[in-house]
């Protein structure tokens, strides 16, 4: 059975005319790594809000169709219970700092306090997550006085420390440098490998190509295209949907047009290297 099942879901935010989601139907399976891409305003964040139950519990508006999480309609989920099941890292890192704690260490621990995790275990988990995200040196800092990138990492740490089985992550690297971005992706990947379901919104297409298993392309509130990463990102048609495809795929198409096609359209650098090498032989 599908883990998260959307059946003909449409949604309109309060006081707006246009629907932010239009007749969306999709099934997410447990334990898979999904990437959501698409143009600005395409409805990516809205889709995340729905999966996490913020629609309809926080955002009122008009929700039609059926959205089931683990077999239960999002309308019937208790907001507390769903928050303990699905972790959500928001797009805007600035509003994710509680503002009531004096140190980053305490900030990261908030979720665990609310979940009633015993103190010794709490300390251990916070220490581990801080190491994972490279924020060990910040633990004593005031969370209200962090830089943008630091805030984003602290916000991310604060959610993954809760160890939910599912993670919805909306552009976690918007404030990070390439190195920080790479390390966040490594963490997400290792979380996936530990069996978690990951739903990730991201613009950095090369990283999507490298890590995700399935892709959804959102455009104008609809899922314009969906399928295995390879199929979506090697397709030139994806470009018409207001999104990018990896440079290696463009290269693959260019080779084809030049009459020297590779055996396949590569979507990652490794693949490209391999295909070119293979052709050379």
């Amino acid at each position, binding site marked *: 059975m599908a883990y998260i099942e959307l059946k003909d879901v449409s949604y309109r935010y309060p006081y707006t005319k246009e629907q932010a989601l239009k007749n969306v139907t999709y099934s997410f399976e447990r334990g898979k790594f999904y990437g959501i891409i698409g143009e600005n305003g395409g409805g990516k964040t809205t889709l995340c809000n729905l999966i996490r139950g913020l629609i309809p519990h926080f955002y009122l508006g008009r929700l039609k169709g059926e959205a089931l999480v683990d077999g239960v309609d999002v309308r019937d989920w208790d907001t507390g219970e769903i928050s303990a099941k699905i972790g959500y890292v928001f797009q805007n890192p600035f509003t994710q700092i509680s503002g009531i704690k004096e140190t980053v260490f305490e900030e990261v621990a908030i979720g665990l306090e609310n*979940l009633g995790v015993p103190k010794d275990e709490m300390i251990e988990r916070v*220490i581990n997550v801080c190491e994972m995200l490279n924020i060990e040196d910040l*633990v004593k800092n005031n969370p209200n006085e962090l830089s943008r990138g630091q805030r984003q990492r602290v916000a991310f740490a604060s959610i993954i420390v809760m160890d939910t089985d599912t993670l919805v992550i909306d552009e976690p690297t918007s404030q990070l440098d390439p190195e920080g971005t790479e390390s966040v992706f490594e963490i997400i990947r290792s979380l996936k490998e530990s069996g978690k379901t990951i739903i990730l919104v991201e613009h950095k297409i090369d990283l999507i190509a490298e890590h995700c298993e399935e892709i959804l392309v959102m455009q104008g509130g609809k899922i314009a295209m969906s399928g295995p990463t390879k199929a979506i990102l090697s397709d030139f048609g994806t470009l018409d949907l207001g999104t990018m495809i990896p440079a290696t795929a463009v290269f693959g198409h260019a080779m084809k047009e030049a009459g020297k096609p590779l055996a396949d359209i590569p979507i990652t650098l490794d693949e490209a290297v391999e295909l070119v090498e293979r052709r050379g032989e």
Partner: protein
Amino acid sequence: MHVEFGNSFKKFYKTGNFWCDLYPTTKLILCFTVAMSTIVMNNWIYGFSVCLFYFIFAFFTGHGKQFTKTFLILFVIIGLFLVVIRQVGMRTGNVTPMFEIFGWIWYRESFITSLDVSSYMLGFAGGILLFFDTTPMRDLMYAFEHMGVSHVTSFIMLSSMQNIIDLRKTSVAILESQKSRGIETDGNILVRSKAFFPTISPLILGAFSSTEEKSIAMDARAFSVKRKHTFLRELKPMSQIEKILCLLFSLALISLTVWKIAAALIK
């Protein structure tokens, strides 16, 4: 280093100052009973002695400067104001003239009453001020949560405090940015008020939208999960001595009150 810091939470949180490390409720009861006693006594010698004690005590707790700053302002405003008001307003019962300023006679009786009144107002305010100066809001909320106040209430309180601090910072930032755009923010009231309105509108709008987003963000940290909470940073629970101290102070206040009422009735 981060491991060490993390493990420091295994012990009760301590500042190292005897008074500051008392449980918030203890501090509240002690400050409150002393503050109330000045009202019950209604005597300027007692009241001002207590005020003097506050000063000395505040320095002992390491919050002397902070306390003095606010308390001195109160002292000047309440003290002077009441003394003058009494000389103007209350004329009955005045028999003993003290001195005369340009034909305005000051009476001893009014003067003493005004001292009594201002001493207890200051005595009361000072006690409360001392409590808040030496008890961080988060400690107070910690104690409240342990008494059964919901963590949501506690979050709202702490968060409002933080909002006030943030608002002050943002408004300064906005004023600065307007100054750099050539809007006059220095000068007389009229000039300033012109700068004021464009300042507060983004401020208020920003405050609203961030409240909504913040409440959603807190929900992501399992805020609405209905489970028993645990606390990372813990305060040492009230010791036996603290309990006895609280009891003694409360009993003293009650006896003082009873004695005062009885004395008044006999008279």
